[in-house]
């Protein structure tokens, strides 16, 4: 370091002296050809100017001007070849040379300094730009790490290590870019080794959403660096963090997308099957109905009645499955609108009573029309399922009551019957998928335990809750609320 400094001083002194000697020689030459002294003065000023330009700081400029004055005095003023001055005019000339020299050298050195600064800044932004643009082309966190390590190693001229911490898969990778060349070495390491590596290096953590996802490790010596370099390094680290964050978020989005795609495929499959089942079922129901009109024999009528009822039941099941797939598909398939509670209940009752024409269903709704945001078809499905469940637990002589009322911001729907009620053991599991109540008597219509589970799914999707309890005397009550 010191040697280098000495070297510069020697060089600069050499420049100063040689320019002065050249000026003196040139002056002697032009004097010989009979030019006036004024030209000599100008040549000396020029030499001082050149000195300032090609040396650092303004010390050399001042030194050069002093030497120039002395040389001018020695070679060109009477008495010649002495440092004494006869004509007082020359004192004034010396002063002018001195001031001109100091002024110009201060100016030039300042100019040189700002140019150097600008050059430095430009170089920094060039480096930053290169790093940013190569990071922009990366795909995947490992790629980001590779590019970052290589860029840093060529920028700082040292070995650079990038440790990639994958928290999801619990793996740690160590990528090292050597000082020389563009190669990179990749090594899987244990998470315990991270501490030892960070202890021996000047380390910058890369953090995404509060989680440490990577570490940039530089040689310890770099801990002391200039403010400019430090600033540059910080900017580079920032760029690396942004790139890593981008890659992690993209990866997460991809995973989420793949998952929804899978879900969608599943429910589209289910829906396609349901659709295809529905068409022949409609045919079967229709054919059975035609036969019912034609047949006269009591026994045959009973058989066909069975076909008719069962195919109707299957159609309702398919309807339920189709609604379930809509819930699973989420917001896109669901159409939330304001619906009048009375209209929804009326539709549900009129459809449900097609299958239970003998049951009496009484309804009570509030005096003021109640508009509730919901997917009307889905809530109709909930009510139909609850009514069917009530029908299953009652005989036509029992009562089924449906009521709707408003309580604060909640609209309550209730389906209550005075039938057989529900086995106490079954109550907690009633809304589970594929649960079939044990108390169901042998003759009862079959179930695969979907109806109530779908009710729960639909109500929960609307932000409401569904519950059931046995009545004090007989039967049970299902109720659910929707938010207004």
């Amino acid at each position: 370091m010191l040697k280098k400094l000495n070297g510069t001083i020697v060089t600069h002194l050499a420049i100063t002296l040689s320019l002065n000697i050249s000026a003196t020689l040139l002056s002697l030459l032009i004097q010989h050809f009979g030019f006036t002294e004024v030209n000599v003065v100008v040549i000396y000023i020029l030499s001082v100017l050149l000195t300032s330009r090609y040396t650092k700081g303004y010390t050399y400029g001042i030194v050069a001007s002093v030497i120039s004055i002395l040389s001018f005095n020695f070679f060109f003023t009477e008495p010649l070849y002495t440092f004494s001055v006869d004509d007082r005019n020359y004192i004034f000339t010396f002063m002018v040379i001195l001031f001109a020299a100091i002024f110009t050298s201060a100016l030039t050195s300042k100019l040189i300094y700002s140019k150097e600064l600008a050059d430095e800044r430009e170089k920094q932004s060039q480096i930053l730009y290169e790093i940013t643009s190569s990071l922009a082309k990366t795909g995947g966190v490992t790629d980001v790490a590779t590019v970052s390590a290589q860029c840093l190693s060529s920028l700082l001229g040292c070995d650079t290590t990038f440790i990639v911490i994958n928290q999801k898969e619990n793996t740690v990778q160590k990528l090292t870019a050597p000082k020389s060349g563009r190669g990179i070495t990749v090594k899987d390491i244990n998470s315990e080794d991270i501490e030892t590596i960070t202890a021996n290096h000047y380390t910058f953590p890369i953090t995404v959403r509060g989680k440490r996802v990577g570490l940039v490790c530089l040689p310890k010596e770099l801990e002391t660096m200039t403010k400019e370099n430090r600033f540059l390094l910080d900017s580079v680290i920032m760029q690396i963090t942004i790139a890593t964050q981008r890659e992690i978020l993209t990866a997460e989005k991809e995973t989420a997308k793949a998952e929804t795609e899978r879900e969608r495929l599943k429910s589209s499959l289910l829906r396609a099957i349901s659709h295809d089942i529905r068409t022949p079922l409609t045919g079967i129901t229709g054919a059975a109905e035609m036969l019912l009109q034609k047949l006269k024999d009591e026994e045959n009528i009973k058989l066909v009645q069975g076909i008719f009822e069962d195919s109707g039941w299957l159609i309702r099941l398919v309807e339920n499955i189709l609604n379930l797939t809509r819930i699973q598909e989420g917001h896109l398939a669901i159409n939330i609108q304001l619906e009048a509670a009375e209209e929804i209940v009326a539709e549900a009752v009129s459809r449900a009573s097609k299958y239970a024409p003998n049951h009496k269903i009484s309804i009570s709704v509030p005096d003021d029309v109640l508009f509730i945001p919901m997917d009307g078809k889905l809530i109709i499905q909930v009510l139909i399922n609850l009514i069917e469940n009530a029908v299953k637990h009652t005989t036509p002589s029992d009562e089924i009551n449906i009521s709707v009322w408003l309580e604060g911001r909640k609209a309550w729907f209730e389906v209550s019957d005075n039938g057989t009620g529900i086995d106490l053991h079954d109550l907690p599991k009633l809304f589970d998928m594929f649960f079939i109540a044990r108390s169901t008597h042998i003759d009862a219509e079959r179930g695969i335990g979907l109806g109530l589970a779908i009710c729960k799914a639909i109500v929960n999707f609307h932000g409401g809750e569904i519950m059931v309890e046995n009545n004090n005397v007989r039967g049970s009550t299902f109720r659910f609320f929707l938010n207004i």
Partner: protein
Amino acid sequence: MGILFLIVEDDRKIRKFINFSLRSQEYDCIEAATGKEAMRLITTQNLVAIILDLGLPDMDGVELIKQVREFSDIPIVVVSARDQDNEKVEALDAGADDYLTKPFSIKELLARIRVVLRHSNDNKKEDAPVVYRVADLEVDLEKHKVTLEGKDIHFTPMEYNVLTLLIKNSGKVLTHKYILKEVWGTYLDSEIQSMRVFMASIRRKLEKNPAKPRYILTEVGIGYRFADE
């Protein structure tokens, strides 16, 4: 030549079922499995009504309705699945007279057909009645008077207009859009809600229990129907 129906349906079993239902009422039927064939029959045969499945293999059912409506007022009853509400509404707005949701029973089909036949006869007579009587309800269009079980009921002019529109088309489903256009003169989605409030208030004046309507039935997601039977 009896009363001749056209059944346009690509599913053979459902076609047979509709055919059977109609024949049981002594109606005659011809069948078409594609839209093209249907168009040929509509233009060549003297039909009374068309029963049309919206999901045809060769053309959009709604498109077929539009084409037919360019030259004929023949009643059209649309048949479709429950999850095709939008298509139903489109079909009704394009000029279909009514709809049926699969699976439907013989009873439902015949009820719809009776309504469309009656309306097409009414239109031919051109002297629409002045007083409508349905069960306990009586609406006198000349005197602007509505009585239920003999008692006068007061309606605001707007409510009265909605009620008369419904009762003139009793048995037929009227879409939200149709009612808005006829009564309010405009069609904006935002107005559907205010129309529903009107409906609720009319219902409260007519019905003993608005959730068990006798007169004004709601077709959820589609519109309203005045029950006449």
